[in-house]
């Protein structure tokens, strides 16, 4: 093992004298493989030396060496792999690599053990083992089986107890080691898979299978040894045995045998423990030994699998309750509570007398073992709710009384468990009824405790102790029945005053569970529980604790302090305080009044206030620095909660004075006040739990403003991790499931999340919430639901620079690129959601069922129609407007999403509501262009391929069909094969089917074209089909020719090449009629023609014409053809800019009325980027071998394609003949527009108002059908980036292996891209790189919105290269 991998944690452990074994000693080692001899020297050898020695080996020794080399290799691999994994995923190292003089390798330790085991009778050896070898070996999380013989020898021969303890420890490790690929359950430094090493005979050939039986034999012999002097070792042997994997039935049955054997002897001891005495000290020897054995046996039993049907098992577990050893009692209770879940009747019967007062179970109440009492609570709960025991109410009530006594337990853990049990929470599978019954119990039960339990005074924390003492004192004093809820409330309130975070967290969790039970009670109709009823109706007068407000000596002091603080707060820079706090302060001027009333109890508050005041005065009020903000944030939070607290106390004081405090509602209100103040806790997890509790305690009819404001102010705290926020969102979801009435409230709350922290929340989670709430919400709620979703569309696009400013409450804090991405996903989710659920918006309400016939004329005026539509359904209109805005301002991914959303929207809107058609068409036409230009990812193409044919064949409006058909054709031309053939098939079907259906359905149709009939699509489609026909025919010919040439090994003649070239040019001409294609790059005959055409061009000196290289097209096409996975996401910045610029300029185009400027811009654009376009693509194209690639594609596609089937069916099925009143409109449009097929948009079909609305009329005049090659096409090139993206070319890989290895390097080194950092960026992970604004960078490659960049010189953190967000880099 070389030193770099073998010296991890070891380095830090003093390696001073070191075992330094002499090689001579190794002869005596119990496992004396020769390999051991040289391991010491080998362990320092570098891998190179190791391999060289193995190469040179000829003899046996050489062979062994090679095995050893394998061992080293494996060990190195495992460790370094594990370390590497940890470095990258966890950004931590196992240990820093410090160079020590004496690193101790595993092999050295192993060798030392072998040697020292042989001389274990010598003191020095023992010392070595105890102080050096064993502790260091513990660093490795497993030990290899070859150590077992030495360990067993030590076990048998050694007397030293410390050595023996280690021996048991390691034997247990060997037993438990499941050998799972180097990482075993023990954790620690990863160690190799020993068995795998043993198989290759590298560690002396010892596998676990060899040694485990020996170890088990030895240990079980010791575990059964009844010798009294031996019993300490017996305990440890038994313990080590339990580590054997449960899958080994042989060992398991042996263990059962031993455990029951021990319990047979000691379990039935005649001498029971004295009442309430645990852990006897100074008892007689026999009983002590007995107790120890009982402990060991039960501990082992606990680790064995449960055996529910076995009476012996149950009997032994029940016996355990009476044992003297507290740990044994705990284990037996744990076993029993698990058994009770399976067989409550049996357990209850077996426990029999133990539960009665004075029985062993009652003793457990005084046992100082928290987990034992927790198990007792569970046991009691399981038995009391068991159906099987319905006929034995006496037994149930006995267990119930034990459970209620546990409510008074000094430990929060036990008390809370008891509350959980009362509330009906057992595991997470309980039913609503149980929960509801739990709430009923909690609110109704009056505790009539048989006696005040004498509580052990040792509590887990000081304040709980006080509390329990207080309640104890009281119950001693009064002995009157207590309402359960009051007890619980008081306990909870006191817990909330704790300073321990776990206690606060747990208390909030209890409140959450309370809320769940309450919600369940409401759900099953127990809501008529009158929470106003006085809980003390049965008991005597109200508790006087909180009601005495005497003269207040501190009032003046507090008043002065409060004034002072308010003054300071006002001086405080307003923008640095959260809005809420300001309002709160202003609104709560009466805060001073409260202070004037505070009693002496608030003297503590006055101290707190004075402390705050000092803090305020210390803070610089005029300097804006980020840390100030967080400080002021927490300050203001604590002040607020203090105010809340004081206010609550005041309210409760007043209400208690009037006697209404003791209603359930009153109790809950005061508890909730305390809960709310806990939001001030600085631990974000506690706060999350509190918020969850508040959400659960929220009732539908209550005002949720307070909750809303708490959440809103919490969310402005940047320290919330995303997972926690999503967890809270899921809580909202669960809350909705429990009480569907709350849909609206919850949506409002979810909306806060969406607007405040869009970057942190998971779009999927939010969508889930929307979905369920929308489905569950009533008619009124739907409005809110849609509103809540559409609000997301209003979120402003993130500004990378905004992170420099202060995060204000109202602004979206999507400041870093990661959250910007998340925000984008959120917007996309919202759009999808709107589209998919538009039927709610469109059909379920507000829309009139049919347009009155008289309005047919009015329908011509789209403006009015839209206005009418909007007034009828403002929600939907709002959604559409937002969609539209999104489409125009967002990045193109968002735009695509929007299109599809719109498309779904269109699908789901009933036919009678076609007034919205104009909205949609405007967006569609625009977006389809973007999409056909940017067919970069398969995913979108697939969606479109299913969507567009639908639009073509089914949609009533001709314009949509035209646009869709155009889009399809453009896609067919510009994208690669899987789509082209599909579209081709579809268009064919449409053209033919349309004609047929026209004949058959003529009489059905009331004037509107239904299929692709003569006046409709038929005319339009046939030229498109012709083009595709020609392309395929030419390709077929080419492939045939290539085959012929290949077969005959003939060179291509100039004639042939010329013919080919002409076909190529002709096709180019035709194709460019339909859409813009870069002539130099486009290959209508497929990539295989590239080479030939190139040859011809070079021969005849034909230079490629305009549009030198169009990376957008090249990448678009190549992506489709050569990548089966979606292309990496484009950087958004560039996209946004270009799209925006484009959108902004569109108005000009429209106004000018011709497309020349657009064309020139296209060319400028292309020329500019063309110079930078790398040669990689060229290489790839050239390197493509002449294989009929397209042929292959076509074959596979023709054979099976579900998509195609769909397309075909939708194409040929006769369209629904939906009655339409819009004959006039359709003829109007039909007459006007369809000839302008090759203008990319239909012109003036009444949608002009939309285009105006969207910032400029992009709809220019019609262009004539045949304008010849290179005609100006109004479609502009897409925004594109990173032309240097090297794509994967499977053909290149197949054809030339040598290319493969060189290509990546060449791609990166030949085309370095440079840029500079726009902003400061601090790395968030190991693979990221910190930037300082202005730094020069070399961009290596891009992945998912990140650049991998290199710096010229290392930064402050010493790193040279790493990932940075694309948005932070200005590409030069």
């Amino acid at each position, binding site marked *: 093992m070389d030193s770099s991998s073998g010296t991890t944690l070891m380095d830090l*452990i003093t390696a001073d004298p070191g075992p330094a074994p002499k090689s001579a000693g190794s002869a005596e080692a119990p496992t004396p493989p020769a390999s051991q001899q040289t391991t010491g020297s080998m362990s320092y050898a570098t891998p190179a030396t190791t391999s060289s020695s193995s190469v040179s080996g000829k003899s046996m020794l050489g062979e062994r060496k090679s095995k050893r080399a394998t061992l080293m290799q494996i060990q190195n691999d495992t460790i370094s792999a594990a370390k590497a994994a940890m470095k990258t995923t966890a950004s931590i190292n196992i240990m820093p690599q410090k160079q020590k003089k004496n690193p101790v390798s595993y092999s050295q330790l192993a060798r030392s053990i072998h040697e020292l085991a042989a001389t274990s009778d010598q003191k020095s050896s023992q010392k070595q083992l105890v102080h050096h070898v064993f502790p260091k070996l513990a660093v490795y999380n497993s030990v290899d089986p070859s150590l077992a013989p030495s360990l067993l020898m030590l076990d048998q021969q050694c007397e030293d107890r410390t050595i023996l303890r280690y021996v048991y420890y390691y034997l247990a490790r060997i037993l438990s080691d499941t050998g799972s690929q180097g990482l075993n359950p023990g954790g620690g430094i990863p160690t190799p898979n020993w068995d795998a090493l043993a198989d290759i005979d590298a560690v002396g050939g010892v596998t676990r299978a060899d040694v485990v039986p020996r170890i088990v034999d030895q240990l079980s012999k010791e575990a059964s040894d009844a010798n009294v002097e031996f019993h300490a070792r017996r305990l440890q042997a038994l313990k080590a045995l*339990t580590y054997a994997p449960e899958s080994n039935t042989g060992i398991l049955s042996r263990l059962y045998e031993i455990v029951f054997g021990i319990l047979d002897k000691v379990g039935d001891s005649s001498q029971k423990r004295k009442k309430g005495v645990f852990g006897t000290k100074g008892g007689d020897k026999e009983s002590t030994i007995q107790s120890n054995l009982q402990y060991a046996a039960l501990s082992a039993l606990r680790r064995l699998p449960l055996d529910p049907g076995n009476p012996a098992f149950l009997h032994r577990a029940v016996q355990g309750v009476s044992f003297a050893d507290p740990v044994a009692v705990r284990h037996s209770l744990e076993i029993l509570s698990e058994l009770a879940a399976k067989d409550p009747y049996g357990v209850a019967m077996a426990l029999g007398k133990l539960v009665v007062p004075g029985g062993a179970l009652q003793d457990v109440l005084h046992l100082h073992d928290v987990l034992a009492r927790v198990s007792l609570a569970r046991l009691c709960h399981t038995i009391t709710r068991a159906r099987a025991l319905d006929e034995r109410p006496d037994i149930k009530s006995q267990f119930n009384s034990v459970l209620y006594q546990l409510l008074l337990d000094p430990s929060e853990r036990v008390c809370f468990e008891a509350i959980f049990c009362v509330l009906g929470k057992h595991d997470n599978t309980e039913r609503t009824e149980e929960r509801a019954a739990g709430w009923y119990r909690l609110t109704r039960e009056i505790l009539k405790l048989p006696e005040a339990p004498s509580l052990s005074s040792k509590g887990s924390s000081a304040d709980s102790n006080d509390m329990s003492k207080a309640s104890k004192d009281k119950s001693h004093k009064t002995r009157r029945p207590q309402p359960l809820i009051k007890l619980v409330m008081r306990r909870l309130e006191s817990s909330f005053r704790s300073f321990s975070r776990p206690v606060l967290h747990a208390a909030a969790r209890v409140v959450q569970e309370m809320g769940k039970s309450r919600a369940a009670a409401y759900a099953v109709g127990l809501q008529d529980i009158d929470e106003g009823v006085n809980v003390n109706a049965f008991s005597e007068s109200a508790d006087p604790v909180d009601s005495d407000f005497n003269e207040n000596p501190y009032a003046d002091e507090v008043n002065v302090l409060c004034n002072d603080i308010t003054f300071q707060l006002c001086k405080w820079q307003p923008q640095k305080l959260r809005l809420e706090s300001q309002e709160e302060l202003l609104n709560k001027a009466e805060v001073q009044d409260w202070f004037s009333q505070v009693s002496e109890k608030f003297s503590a508050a006055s101290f707190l206030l004075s402390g705050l005041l000092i803090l305020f005065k210390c803070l610089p009020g005029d300097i804006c620095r980020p840390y100030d903000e967080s400080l002021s944030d927490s300050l203001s939070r604590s002040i607020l909660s203090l105010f809340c607290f004081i206010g609550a106390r005041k309210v409760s004081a007043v209400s208690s004075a009037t006697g209404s405090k003791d209603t359930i509602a009153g109790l809950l209100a005061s508890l909730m006040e305390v809960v709310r103040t806990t939001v001030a806790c600085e631990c974000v997890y506690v706060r999350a739990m509190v918020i969850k509790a508040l959400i659960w305690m929220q009732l539908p009819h209550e005002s949720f403003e307070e909750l809303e404001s708490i959440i809103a102010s919490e969310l402005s705290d940047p320290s919330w991790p995303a997972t926690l926020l999503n967890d809270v969102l899921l809580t909202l979801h669960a809350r909705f499931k429990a009480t569907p009435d709350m849909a609206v409230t919850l949506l409002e709350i979810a909306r806060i999340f969406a607007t405040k922290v869009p970057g942190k929340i998971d779009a999927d989670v939010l969508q889930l919430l929307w979905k369920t709430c929308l489905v569950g919400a009533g008619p009124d709620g739907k409005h809110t639901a849609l509103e809540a979703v559409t609000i997301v569309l209003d979120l402003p696009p993130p500004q990378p620079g905004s992170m420099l400013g202060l995060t204000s409450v109202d602004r979206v804090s999507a400041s870093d690129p990661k959250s910007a991405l998340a925000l984008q996903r959120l917007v996309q989710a919202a759009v999808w959601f709107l589209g998919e659920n538009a039927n709610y918006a469109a059909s379920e309400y507000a829309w009139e069922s049919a347009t009155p016939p008289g309005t047919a004329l009015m329908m011509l005026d789209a403006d009015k129609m839209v206005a009418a539509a909007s007034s009828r359904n403002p929600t939907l209109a709002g959604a559409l407007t937002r969609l539209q805005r999104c489409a125009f301002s967002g990045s193109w991914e968002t735009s695509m999403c929007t299109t599809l959303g719109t498309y779904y929207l269109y699908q789901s809107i009933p036919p009678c509501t076609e007034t919205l058609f104009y909205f949609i068409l405007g967006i569609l036409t625009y977006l389809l262009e973007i999409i056909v230009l940017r067919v970069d990812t398969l995913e979108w193409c697939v969606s479109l391929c299913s969507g567009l044919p639908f639009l073509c064949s089914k949609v009533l409006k001709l314009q949509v069909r035209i646009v869709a058909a155009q889009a399809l054709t453009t896609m067919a031309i510009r994208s690669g094969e899987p789509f082209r053939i599909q579209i081709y098939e579809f268009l064919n079907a449409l053209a033919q089917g349309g004609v047929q259906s026209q004949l058959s359905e003529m009489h059905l149709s009331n004037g509107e074209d239904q299929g692709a009939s003569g006046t409709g699509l038929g005319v339009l489609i046939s030229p498109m089909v012709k083009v595709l026909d020609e392309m395929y025919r030419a390709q077929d010919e080419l492939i045939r020719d290539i085959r012929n040439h290949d077969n005959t090994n003939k060179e291509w003649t100039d004639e042939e090449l010329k013919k080919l070239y002409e076909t190529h040019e002709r096709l180019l001409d035709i194709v460019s009629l339909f859409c813009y294609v870069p002539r130099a790059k486009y290959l209508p005959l497929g990539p295989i023609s590239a080479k030939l055409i190139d040859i011809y061009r070079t021969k005849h000196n034909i230079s490629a014409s305009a549009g030198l290289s169009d990376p957008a097209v090249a990448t678009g096409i190549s992506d489709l053809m050569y990548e089966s996975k979606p292309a990496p996401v484009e950087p958004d910045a560039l996209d946004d800019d270009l799209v925006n610029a484009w959108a902004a300029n569109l108005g000009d185009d429209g106004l000018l009325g011709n497309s020349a400027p657009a064309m020139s811009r296209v060319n400028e654009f292309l020329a500019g980027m063309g110079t930078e376009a790398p040669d990689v693509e060229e290489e790839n194209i050239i390197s493509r071998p002449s294989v009929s690639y397209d042929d292959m594609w076509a074959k596979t596609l023709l054979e099976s394609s579900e998509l195609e089937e769909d397309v075909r069916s939708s194409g040929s099925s006769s369209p629904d003949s939906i009655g339409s009143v819009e004959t006039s409109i359709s003829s109007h449009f039909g007459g006007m527009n369809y000839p302008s097929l090759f203008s990319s948009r239909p012109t003036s079909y009444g949608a002009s108002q939309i285009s105006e609305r969207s910032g400029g009329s992009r709809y220019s005049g019609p262009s004539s059908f045949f304008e010849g090659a290179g005609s100006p096409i109004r479609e502009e090139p897409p925004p594109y980036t990173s032309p240097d993206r090297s794509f994967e070319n499977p053909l290149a890989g197949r054809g030339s292996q040598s290319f493969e290895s060189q290509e990546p390097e060449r791609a990166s080194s030949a085309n370095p891209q440079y840029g500079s950092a726009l902003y400061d960026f601090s790395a968030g992970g190991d693979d990221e790189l910190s930037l300082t604004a202005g730094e020069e960078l070399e961009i290596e490659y891009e992945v998912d919105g990140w650049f991998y960049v290199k710096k010229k010189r290392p930064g402050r953190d010493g790193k040279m290269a790493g990932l940075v967000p694309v948005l932070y880099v200005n590409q030069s």
Partner: protein
Amino acid sequence: MLLAVLISNSEGNILIERFNGVPAEERSHWRSFLVKLGADNLKGSRNEELFVASHKSVYVVYTVIGDVYLYVVGKDEYDELALAEVIFIITASIRDVCQKPPSERLFLDKYGRICLCLDEIVWKGVLENTEKERINRLIRLKPPTNI
């Protein structure tokens, strides 16, 4: 189930880890989650001041003792309060073994004994011994209750 006991130094290097019932592929996630929690919150906190975190139904309680950070992870009956008990026992034993809040060096010097202590406190994902003296006897191979 006590899912994990993890001890790291203040730089996030893991000194001891004991996972129970955590699949191997999840361990590195837990490691980084815990180490990050410690790095975010434990700097400058008092000795043995308890911190809490949760992830779904799994609870984490963590603290600092001397130079080392200590995390325990549990679910079901090992909720935050039970974990607080567990961490209390572990810190008490570490204190006992090291005789003071340990520096990293001291901790590593006592590494073997601390491992044995942990072995007595957590046995196959279940809390075992809770008393300091008892643990002390057991790691010296003496019976839990004195004769």
